[in-house]
């Protein structure tokens, strides 16, 4: 059952490359807005680089959150999932995993390229990548809760964003902080460990909370 | 008295703070009170005819 859902998610994403490419393009565009907005002075860009890339990643993830449940809700597949014998939390986890593989992971891999535009050097790029590899699944997991709560509501993306951005604040702080700490010579270990710890907690709790939210939204 | 109002030169910050607090507390007390009266009146109006 879980394997079926997983394969189906990947198949759907494969058939609709826009679902992957659109947030990715958005990511690059938003990232590019920063130099346009604050000026291209190299020192300045190097200092805002980590934050800018992370913010762009957060916003790009936000863009993709509604599609986690929206298509299934329209087709009625979501109600089916609620009735299936497999635990709902596990099904949610599988859907989020699929969404990360087709959304968050490409984002993380593309980030170092964007970061080059800010003049970050290679060591920092590595920390950025590591942070995003830990952070993007976190963003997807936490975002799923908000997507489930706001299923089918008017106000759509803005409401979803308002609800989930406070959850994203710590992720942003530690992710961006890791790169900044590394750049200052303090080492990224502490920040990355905190991200990892949050990821573990989210893996345990977020699918369960999302499942509860789905039941609330669909009953 | 004018010393009191001046608040050591910080009057422009202190008094608006207290005024805002009075406004916030006052509104949050008055609005439910008004709503309650209206709800009671609406009940009466419905029971009358």
């Amino acid at each position, binding site marked *: 059952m879980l394997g079926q859902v997983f394969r189906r998610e990947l198949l759907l994403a494969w058939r609709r490359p826009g679902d992957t490419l659109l947030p990715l393009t958005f990511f690059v565009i938003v990232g590019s807005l920063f130099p346009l907005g604050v000026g291209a002075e190299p020192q300045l860009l190097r200092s805002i680089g980590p934050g800018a890339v992370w913010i762009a990643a957060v916003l790009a993830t936000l863009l993709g959150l509604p599609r986690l449940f929206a298509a299934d809700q329209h087709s009625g597949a979501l109600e089916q999932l609620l009735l299936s014998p497999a635990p709902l939390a596990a099904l949610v986890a599988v859907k989020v995993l699929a969404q990360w593989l087709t959304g968050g992971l490409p984002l993380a891999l593309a980030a170092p390229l964007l970061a080059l535009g800010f003049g970050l050097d290679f060591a920092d790029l590595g920390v950025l990548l590591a942070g995003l590899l830990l952070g993007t699944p976190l963003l997807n997991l936490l975002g799923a*809760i908000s997507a489930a*709560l*706001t299923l089918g*509501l*008017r*106000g759509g993306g803005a*409401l979803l964003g*308002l*609800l989930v*951005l*406070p*959850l994203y*604040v*710590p992720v942003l*702080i*530690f992710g961006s*902080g890791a790169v*900044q*700490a590394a750049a200052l010579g303090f080492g990224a270990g502490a920040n990355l460990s*905190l991200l990892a710890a*949050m990821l573990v907690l989210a893996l345990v*709790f977020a699918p369960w*909370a999302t499942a*509860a*939210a789905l039941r*609330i*939204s669909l*009953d | 008295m004018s010393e*009191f109002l001046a*608040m*050591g*030169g*910080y*009057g422009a*910050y*202190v008094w*608006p*703070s*207290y005024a*805002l*607090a009075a406004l*916030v*507390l006052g509104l*949050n*007390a008055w609005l*439910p*009170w008004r*709503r*309650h009266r209206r*709800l*009671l009146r609406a*009940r*009466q109006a419905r*029971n009358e005819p």
Partner: protein
Amino acid sequence: MFGPTLDRLAAPKFFYPFAGRLLPWLGTLAAALLLLGAGWGLALAPADYQQGDSYRIMFIHVPAAWLSMLTYMVMAGGAFVFLVWRMKLADMLAKCCAPLGAAFTALTLITGSLWGKPMWGTWWAWDARLTSELVLLFLYLGLIALRGAIDEPQRAGRATALLALVGVVNIPIIHFSVEWWNTLHQPASLTRMDGPAIHPAMLTPLLLMIAGFTVYFAAVLLQRLRCEILERERDARWLVELDAP
């Protein structure tokens, strides 16, 4: 010992008159505490060695901050009770808390800004407390927005309850992360008015104001709950009987 009494109170039918009897006392007490505390804080307490008279904003800012957190805790408690035991009154409690909490948080932020301008020279400083307070405001606004966006009352109550509980887990994490972030970017430069060195002559009015704000919160909450009960239970028999004795 309190079991049966609390159970009875949980029914809107008993809670409504109970709250009505309690209200005048709470309201008077709150007014007395607030007037006394504010008067003392403005006129009697001595000027601060470092901050002069501007510190008197503390007598508003600190109680407001305290209440902004307390309100969230009360709201989260109501949310939990509603999700687990489906007690309607608990949902009403959570609903009434959100706008109050937002008001206290906004008051905290604005007075913090007014206090900060003469002290730090800017209208806003991204220190740990103010930034966490700002995120708290977003949490409250999110709750209000979510409830407003859902038409079915059952779903609205349960969704906001879940969101409130998610927020409870989130708040300490946010606070920790913002403190962490703050130590990276800005060394502690604020004088801590609520440190152990607070002058006793300043402490009394502060405690009076905190107590006053808290009693005020209870009073206003009860009144809001009464309104909520009138609206939700409008066709209930006990209410109809109340109208025509």
